[in-house]
């Protein structure tokens, strides 16, 4: 067992998150101005937030489409036809572009967020699945399940710029928020590749649990989590030490992880258990197992931090979990066999 309680890099790295917004050395005049303007700004911001609620882009593998959910109302506002058997998704930070991997047509559909239409198609090797976008939106990374590489595309020209050899059956991809590193789970090698996101030079190869699939990085970039399908656990990695700090048991066939930094928790989809594990990172264990509608896969926290959205492959529905009550508070019918593997929530363009 790799499991170690109270090990370094667990809670500390996460709780440091909110503090980075405080500015201790702000000059007094600005401070006064901020205080005076704050109530008005807060109201304006609240109004703006309601109108600027983001969208979720849910890949429907069985119906070859993407359902667009408006997170202000939790209603499906559009359905976009894409390639064959779409699975992976990567939305840009601005919401202007959404990329969807189609394993059966061996390509990536490029969706314009504003018009919600497919504006391009990228041919990708043999088995495109995991997909991630650089935070600057300029580079797209696509894991190829069969060729054991990650293909890199320039999103301006839609041309391939690199093929990076990785481990066996690369599946999940993630970048740190600063865009310095690329993380790749190699499912059939039980490893996580850490690479330089620009030069693609290998930085580390880390042993995980058995058959790692999804990988998620904390907003401060200091921790990585892999969901390990065959050992039914989550590996926690300190990205500075490049070492495993903990392994936390979850339930049958964990698939992907979402991070709730404010509450120091992670949410893990357990495919075969039809549940989502809520892990308290301070305690290093599951504090609740939320029953969901069936075969949960892709999972993400909404930017306001209030809800977690979960795509349920068997149930053809997205479940909504309250991060406060940890109860199911919504169920949104989408297309057949929804997966939403990747970063599927983005601001409306």
């Amino acid at each position, binding site marked *: 067992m790799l499991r170690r309680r109270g090990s370094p890099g667990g809670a500390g790295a996460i709780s440091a998150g909110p503090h980075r917004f405080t500015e201790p050395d702000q000059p007094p005049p600005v401070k006064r101005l901020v205080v005076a303007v704050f109530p008005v700004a807060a109201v304006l911001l609240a109004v703006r937030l309601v109108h600027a609620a983001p969208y979720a882009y849910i890949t429907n*593998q*069985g119906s070859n489409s993407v359902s667009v959910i408006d997170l202000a109302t939790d209603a499906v506002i559009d359905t976009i036809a894409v390639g*064959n*058997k779409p*699975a992976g998704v990567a939305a840009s930070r601005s919401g202007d572009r959404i990329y969807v991997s189609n*394993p*059966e*047509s*061996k390509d990536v559909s490029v969706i314009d967020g504003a018009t919600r239409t497919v504006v391009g198609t990228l041919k990708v090797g*043999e*088995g495109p699945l995991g997909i991630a976008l650089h935070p600057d939106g300029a580079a797209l990374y696509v894991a190829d*399940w*069969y060729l054991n590489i990650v293909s890199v595309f320039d999103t301006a020209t839609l041309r391939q710029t690199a093929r990076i050899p990785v481990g066996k059956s690369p599946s999940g991809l993630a970048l740190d928020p600063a865009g310095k590193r690329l993380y790749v789970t190699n499912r059939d090698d039980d490893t996580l590749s850490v690479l330089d996101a620009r030069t693609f030079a290998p930085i580390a190869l880390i042993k995980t649990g058995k058959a790692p699939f999804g990988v998620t990085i904390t907003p401060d970039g200091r921790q990585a989590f892999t969901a390990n399908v065959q050992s039914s656990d989550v590996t926690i990695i300190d990205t500075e030490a490049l070492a495993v700090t903990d392994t936390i048991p979850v339930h*049958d*066939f964990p698939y992907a992880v979402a991070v709730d930094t404010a509450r120091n928790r992670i949410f893990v989809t357990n495919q*075969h*258990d039809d549940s989502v594990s809520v892990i308290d990172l301070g305690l290093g264990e599951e504090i609740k197992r939320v029953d969901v509608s069936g*075969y949960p896969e892709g999972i993400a926290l909404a930017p306001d931090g209030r809800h977690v959205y979960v795509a349920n*492959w*068997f149930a053809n529905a997205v479940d909504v979990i309250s991060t406060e009550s940890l109860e199911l508070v919504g169920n949104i019918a989408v297309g057949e*066999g929804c997966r939403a593997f990747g970063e599927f929530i983005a601001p409306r363009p």
Partner: protein
Amino acid sequence: MHKFVRFSIAALLALPVAVLAHGPSRQKAEKEVEINAPAEAVWKALKGTCSIADWHPAVATCEAKGEGKGATRVLTLGEAGSGKTIDEEFTMFDEEKMTFKYKITKVAAEVLPVNSYAAQMIVEPAGAAKSKVTWKAGYYRYYTQNDPPKGQDEEAANTAVNGVFEAGMAGLKKFIETGSKN
């Protein structure tokens, strides 16, 4: 030159075949049946590790190890001693909710052309003396590499699983309502 053009046309004609070939994507099957018996009675007929041998027409014999979660069974299809076996393991068992899940741990393509097969059976009341049984499964085709041979593709997997479900659900209904599967 002429030869080259002809060759190119031949190559182009051959292309669609190569484009059609693809890697596996997960498939699903689901079947419901209404049975004229209370849910408790149906659950009782269903929950044993080897109950399936009582009601599934394709299952000749069943060898059980244990009960509930973690139990395993080896099904023999067709006739006893046919060698057509499926190894399965119960991964979840909930007496109160009248449901269990199981997975296939070993099967040959000739017996059932599937991979990573995981299934669930659920019994629910549907009125006073009626119940609804749901059988559902998620699985891949048998061939996990690119470009499957015929018989190990998605079509073969779906045909086989749907066949097992249809025969099984009809058999279960008949067994409970008449006391015999045949």
